[in-house]
């Protein structure tokens, strides 16, 4: 396929197509406690990506034979709305959604004290309302806030971000356009205070040196997301900072 490159994704002076520097993340806005009928919820606007997460549980595991005798069963349900992408997306669960559900669950489970709630289940429902790249990263970051809102004990918040290679340069926080045209995409989920990586994926091709650089860039990006998560928690709960009497 011959594709004439009319529009370049990175300008001569290192500015990306949406005006960001190479190592700059998109504006991120988290909000907790947005849903009434869940135990915990969070909403995120990550650039143009918009995701709603609801958490139910810990609650009795149904069907019962799937319950685990030594820990809680964590299940994530990643779903994209039909209107979330440019072309209409079929409402039937796609291979990609099933895979992302598994990947997101595995990125969050190490952070949760699942052993505190044997025989129960914790369900994380992720609805992508608008997709513009890095939906798995945004989902993981928002889901960990929804888990906090549900009062589920956790080791740390999970912050997540992706690094891509576009026109030979490493860029932080890949958006849809860059993801599609770029040479490589590498999302990571990270627990900053434990210095533990819970998800690391990569497609495309990069050199060993670029890989090492990417990791540093990812950690830096995750720290920024982590700060935003903490800010969101503080602004949601600041009204509750108690100065009254308690038992």
């Amino acid at each position, binding site marked *: 396929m011959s594709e004439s490159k009319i529009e370049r994704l990175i300008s001569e002076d290192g500015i990306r197509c949406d005006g960001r520097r190479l190592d700059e993340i998109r504006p991120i806005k988290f909000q907790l406690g947005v849903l009434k009928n869940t135990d915990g919820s969070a909403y995120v606007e990550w650039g143009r990506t918009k995701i709603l997460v609801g958490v139910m549980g810990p609650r009795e595991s149904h069907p019962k034979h799937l319950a685990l*005798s030594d820990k809680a069963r964590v299940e994530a349900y990643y779903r994209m709305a039909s209107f979330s992408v440019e072309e209409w997306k079929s409402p039937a669960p796609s291979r990609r959604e099933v895979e992302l559900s598994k990947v997101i669950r595995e990125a969050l489970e190490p952070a949760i*004290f699942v052993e505190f709630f044997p025989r*129960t289940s914790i369900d994380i429902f992720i609805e992508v309302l608008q997709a513009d790249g890095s939906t798995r990263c945004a989902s993981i970051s928002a889901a960990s806030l929804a888990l*906090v809102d549900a009062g589920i*004990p956790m080791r740390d918040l999970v912050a997540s971000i992706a690094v891509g290679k576009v026109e030979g340069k490493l860029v932080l926080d890949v958006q849809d356009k860059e993801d599609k045209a770029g040479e490589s995409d590498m999302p990571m989920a990270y627990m900053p205070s434990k210095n533990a990586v819970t998800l690391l994926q990569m497609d495309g091709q990069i050199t060993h040196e670029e890989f090492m650089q990417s990791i540093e860039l990812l950690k830096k990006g995750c720290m920024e997301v982590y700060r935003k998560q*903490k800010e969101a*928690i503080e602004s949601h709960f600041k009204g509750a900072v108690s*100065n*009254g009497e308690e038992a």
Partner: protein
Amino acid sequence: MTTFYEPRQLVSPGTLLAEGNYQPGFNVYRDDGKYYASMVGLVDIRNNVISVIPLRGCYIPQPGDLVIGKVVECISTAWMLDIRSPYQGVLFASEFLSKPLNPLKEEARRYLDVGEMVVATVMAFDRTRNPSLTARDHGLGKIHRGTVIDVDFTRVPRIIGKKGSMITMLKKETGAQILVGQNGRVWISGKSRDEEAIIAEAIRKIELEAHTTGLTDRVREFLVSKRR
């Protein structure tokens, strides 16, 4: 021995609270000699025990807790109770009736049917089996009258108040019988439905304004204003 947060400061999971010779209390875990919060809440340090008072969460039964349960299932010689926890409470017939129940001769639901409320205490719970309850002590048993309301379980200490100050005031001002279950259910038994509704409203007020100072006085004023 260093702490990084003052008591009553807001922390989130993963926040490093202290290093050194401390004891981890509720919602705090130790990793490599360091103490981290595992829940969103307020820091509490008392005689070297660091805890986090949770702001969100579900009720986990503890032996000795007074709970108010709702019957959801009758099995031959026991009842399953919803106690607003991930685990349903089990109330055996021997822990509710003063005589043995023969499932061949009579049905358990003759004594306690689905939807009825019971005041009970938690006898034992270790998460491997559902919590077992007892309703045989004084003041426990089936609820025959009054109103039961659900409240946020993290607000229960506030409804009780320091050394029971809030609940004592509520009872004194209204003359009603009020029982606060640790699981976030409150039973109110007053002279009339209207009076119970007023107390319920006062409890909602406490729940909403749990973090403010001088709440006891404001709730008292609220009750006085409603009385006329």
